[in-house]
């Protein structure tokens, strides 16, 4: 059992507030992804959980034990680093066995675990090599095997795939997902790549400027962003935003289109994902600027009310730059945000 509870953890580097009062609970065996742009504090939070950084305030609990004053080795964690951190003076075998030897496990147990995790990560044939003789992808596998062999309560991963090339990243992503699901270990995974987050996570904690903006399942984070930032950060191409003015209670003017919306507020921002619009009469008037046929669909960048607006259309719609389209947002996919606070309004 290794539930992780983070209670109002804050971190300050000099005058820079890296984390402001973070609260987060990661359930036992859950795969939690910390997602956010660089500098949002996600790596700092991970390092605080690992014990490599001391929080300025707050508490960290792992499996019912308060750990924020304990050194990393007493926290029951294993970590995979961005640059792999495979020890260059040891062979792959010795690297994987390193932590097990520190635990003074019997020789046979160590050997069995090293071979098992190595075969799990498909590096059995590399056990006698040194890190200098491995490719980036192989080093990554060694780093993951080394963490898994520890059989920790919690595995922490700091952008483990960011140094791999695109194709290898895709392959490793799928493999990591399978291996970590099978190991049933609580995992916290830091990334700035939303696709990685969506594909791996049970839940995603979206972070921005030292705060957690939303914690939800990938689908919910995508469908129902809790804040304008989440909508704009997740999704490629990102969500479209149009400033709406109030006509009457629950009626809004969106770039000349009359739409039903929340009853509250004077000004709101209308938001819809590019794939949630249909070409039909009686919609937003859009002047097409750029057409990008992407194979399965066509990405159209148009102008609505003088602002850029992206739409993902089926390939059956014939459009060319200069065309005028009428785009009807799907009623159940329209979201509204407060332009002042950025919070979602219902």
């Amino acid at each position: 059992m290794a539930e992780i509870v983070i209670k109002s953890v804050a971190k300050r580097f000099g005058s820079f507030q890296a984390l402001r009062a973070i609260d987060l609970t990661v359930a036992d065996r859950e795969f939690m992804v910390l997602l956010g742009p660089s500098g949002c504090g996600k790596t700092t939070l991970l390092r605080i959980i690992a014990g490599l950084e001391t929080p300025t305030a707050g508490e960290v609990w792992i499996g019912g034990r308060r750990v924020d004053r304990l050194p990393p080795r007493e926290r029951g964690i294993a970590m995979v680093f961005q640059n792999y951190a495979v020890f260059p003076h040891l062979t792959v075998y010795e690297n994987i066995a390193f932590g097990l030897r520190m635990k003074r496990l019997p020789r046979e147990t160590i050997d069995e675990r090293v071979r098992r995790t190595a075969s799990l990560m498909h590096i059995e044939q590399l056990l006698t090599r040194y890190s200098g003789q491995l490719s980036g992808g192989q080093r990554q596998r060694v780093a993951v095997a080394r963490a898994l062999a520890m059989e920790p309560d919690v595995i922490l991963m700091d952008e483990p795939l960011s140094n791999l090339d695109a194709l290898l990243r895709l392959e490793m992503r799928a493999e990591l997902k399978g291996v970590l699901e099978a190991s049933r270990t609580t995992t916290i995974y830091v990334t700035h790549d939303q696709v990685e987050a969506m594909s791996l996570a049970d839940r995603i904690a979206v972070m921005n400027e030292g705060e957690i903006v939303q914690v939800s399942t990938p689908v919910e984070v995508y469908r129902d962003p809790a804040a304008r930032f989440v909508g704009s950060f997740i999704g490629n191409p990102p969500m479209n935003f149009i400033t709406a003015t109030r006509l009457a209670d629950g009626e809004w003017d969106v770039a000349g289109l009359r739409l039903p919306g929340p009853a509250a507020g004077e000004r709101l921002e209308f938001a819809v994902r590019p794939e949630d619009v249909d070409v039909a009469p009686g919609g937003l008037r859009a002047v097409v600027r750029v057409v990008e046929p992407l194979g399965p669909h066509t990405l159209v960048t148009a102008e609505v009310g003088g602002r850029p607006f992206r739409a993902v259309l089926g390939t059956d719609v014939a459009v060319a730059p200069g065309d005028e389209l009428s785009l009807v947002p799907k009623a159940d996919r329209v979201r509204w945000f407060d332009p002042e606070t950025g919070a979602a309004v219902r």
Partner: protein
Amino acid sequence: MTVRPAPAEAAAPEDAPRSVTAVGAAGRFLFVAAVVLLCAWVIVPIYLMMVNALSSPREVTAFPKSFVPSFDLGSLRFFVTFAGVAKALWNSVLVAALTMLLSLGLGAPAGYALSRFDFPGKELFRLLVVMTRAFPLPLLALPLAVFFIRTGLDDTALGLAIVHTVLAIPFAALITYSLFSGIPLELEEAAWTLGCTRWQAFYKVVLPLVLPGIAASAVFAFIVSWNEVFAAAVLTIQNRTLPAFLVQSLNVSPLHLKFAGGAALVVPALVFIFAVRRYLFAMWGIASR
């Protein structure tokens, strides 16, 4: 991405580019010449000294000279049995070894601290470490000698080793600082998460990786002490180190004995460097043999 064609060159015929192999051959010649020159710079003086040390006194002063030694061990035998030489040699080794231990024992932790921690006055500390070399030894020698006599450190190997340590420590601290900075902090952090204390992570991960550099730094401290004459001559009387002893006695000795003394000074340093050469060149994963 498109590859832009190189702009057409309106070169005059005599300006025609030379073939790559011709340029390569010239570069190769320069390279080999430089290597030969550098080797000669080191080897020729040592060779000449050896030839003279291994020749009989008559051959040393004779002309024309032979470049093959006659392996007359007379000069060397006389030198070795000369009163005080053995003791001076032992003193030199002792002082150099102490200097090596002290300068690394104090300099390496300083280098580690400089590379791993941020503390107030870090830049000033780095400057001050180098500043210790700004005071000329002759200036310090007299007060030092007085101070040493008062504390009873005069004419001891430890006293001299302390002075030599002061000379060697800036290099030890700065060399180890750059060595430790070359080891990613992530490696240490990985060791901590794998069950190491800070100290265990240091000796299981960092130390094996910096050992070649530490060896180089140790050799350097050894040589600094081995070659130092001034402080040794001022601060010791009975327990002279070899250089100090030779300066004092060989000044008035015949030429062949000077060569024998020179050889006795150079050979131990050469042997020591030879012994640690593996560490000087070794790279992890691709150990050179």
